[in-house]
């Protein structure tokens, strides 16, 4: 067994241990420095939110659950923070059962930190089932009738933040924060027909697929995974805050370098053994 074959057969448990180490270090050090590069779609998201009139409501749509908290959580937090900063009212609606509680907690935390008031500055509409076609169109026609009550079953008419919202004309933007394919339905049934700006915050897996929509202007801005959240944080004046998103972006750097090294090592071993096999009796696949 030469060095190359050995390189090809490192026990996977060793790899798991190594990646854990590689990731832990930046998390323990917690660098506050945010990424200097900001992608265009992140800047456009910032511009769009900055231009929402203060008398309009922003809808934050939560489709994520605990599985992707690490990616969608920071996105939710940074978007809420910006809206609080600007004093634009927003309503959170969750199409995921657990995301319902998680997004409420994030809102609660920021509310305390920034001195805002539930019901006046923001509301949480709770968990709704995902049957979006007619639901979205219905919401655009008659927001009060389809949404009716908030998370605590309080009628919307008693919540100042949303009591005046009647139709799509009172909605300034939609922020869709999601790990699954829900984008098309917003475009087709809400943002498209009524020309409402859409900010898309997908997990990184799905971001590559969204560029055609950015090119066509159907998405007005996008936060690509947690990196997008970190870039956005830098835009709203948190360049040096020691946030999770910032720490994560450095941990990711380390992990990416490690994985690229692994791909290289694995392929070196592969090429070497292939050459050896060709010299020998062939075989293998």
């Amino acid at each position, binding site marked *: 067994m030469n060095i190359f074959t050995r390189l090809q057969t490192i026990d996977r448990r060793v790899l798991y241990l190594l990646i854990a180490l590689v990731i832990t270090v930046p998390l323990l050090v917690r660098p506050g420095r945010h990424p200097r590069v900001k992608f265009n779609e992140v800047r456009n998201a910032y511009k769009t939110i900055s231009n929402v009139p203060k008398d309009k409501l922003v809808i934050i749509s939560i489709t994520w659950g605990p599985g992707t908290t690490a990616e969608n959580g920071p996105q939710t937090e940074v978007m809420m923070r910006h809206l609080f900063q600007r004093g634009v009212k927003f309503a959170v609606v969750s199409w995921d059962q657990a995301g319902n509680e998680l997004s409420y907690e994030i809102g609660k935390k920021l509310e305390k930190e920034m001195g805002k008031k539930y019901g006046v500055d923001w509301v949480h509409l709770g968990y709704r089932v995902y049957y979006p076609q007619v639901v979205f169109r219905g919401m655009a026609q008659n927001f009060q009738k389809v949404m009716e009550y908030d998370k605590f079953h309080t009628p919307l008419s008693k919540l100042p933040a949303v009591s005046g919202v009647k139709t799509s004309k009172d909605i300034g933007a939609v922020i869709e924060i999601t790990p699954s394919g829900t984008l098309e339905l917003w475009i087709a049934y809400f943002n498209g027909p009524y020309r*409402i700006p859409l900010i898309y915050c997908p997990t990184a897996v799905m971001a590559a697929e969204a560029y055609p929509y950015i090119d066509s202007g159907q998405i007005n801005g996008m936060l690509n995974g947690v990196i997008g959240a970190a870039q956005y944080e830098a835009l709203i004046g948190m360049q040096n805050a020691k946030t999770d998103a910032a720490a994560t972006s450095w941990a990711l750097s380390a992990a990416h370098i490690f994985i690229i090294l692994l791909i290289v090592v694995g392929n070196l071993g592969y090429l070497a053994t292939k050459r050896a096999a060709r010299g020998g009796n062939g075989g293998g696949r």
Partner: protein
Amino acid sequence: MGESTVYANIAVYVVEGLLVFFIVYKIISARRGRQLFIRRIPGLSALDEAVGRATEMGRPMLFTPGLSGLSIIGLQAMAIMSHIVKRAAKYGTRVIVPTADPLLYTVAEEVAKDAYNAEGVPEQFNPEDIRYLSDNQFAWASGVVGTLHREKVATAFYFGYYAAESLILTENGQMVGAIQIAGTPTTTQIPFFLASCDYTIIGDEYYAASAYLSREPTLLGSLVGQDYGKLTMIALIIVGAIAVTLGALYPDWTVVHWMQSHFLKYFQRGVG
């Protein structure tokens, strides 16, 4: 908010009408018995090869429809499964089918039974081999992983809807040294199948594969109709590209103005 943006306009009638016409026309003519041509999909010849290999090794095969529910994707996976089960029945090789959807599970059972009957070996059908594991994504995935290892699977087929668990499955499939063939319309999972499977049927090829294997006239016709639909879209884009290029170079031409007001404007989206 103009009305034309909320409801259909003339361009919708023309373009969508054309697409609907092509699709429905081709489906009907295929069902009337007209022979339609579908090109061979490269990965498909590998299917039979893979069945052969499992037979040689005397080990079972695994077929999973992924997380597909009772939807078009899931049902087309069933069409592919039916083909594989028939081949397997011919050689007397076992096929294990773990499913993640309670509804699709009942369909899978029927389809497998039919396939064994069609090959004249109904006694080979073993209901234990069609399994419902869990509708929880990862619970299902770990069940499939267990099956891969315990049954020493020689060949694994992954056809249907897959999400994040795709890599867990193929990674373990590689560990047991199985030949792996995958096909999925879920774009985000294709890279993982490409990297870890021996053959991967990508994107729309998935639908073509099931049409090709099942020889179902409706599917074949629909596929051919879709090709014409795509050609229509390409034609639109080329005409549009010429129009906008002319518009950029010679903004004063009358033709340019006419194109703008009778053609291009239907495809532009007002921002915000």
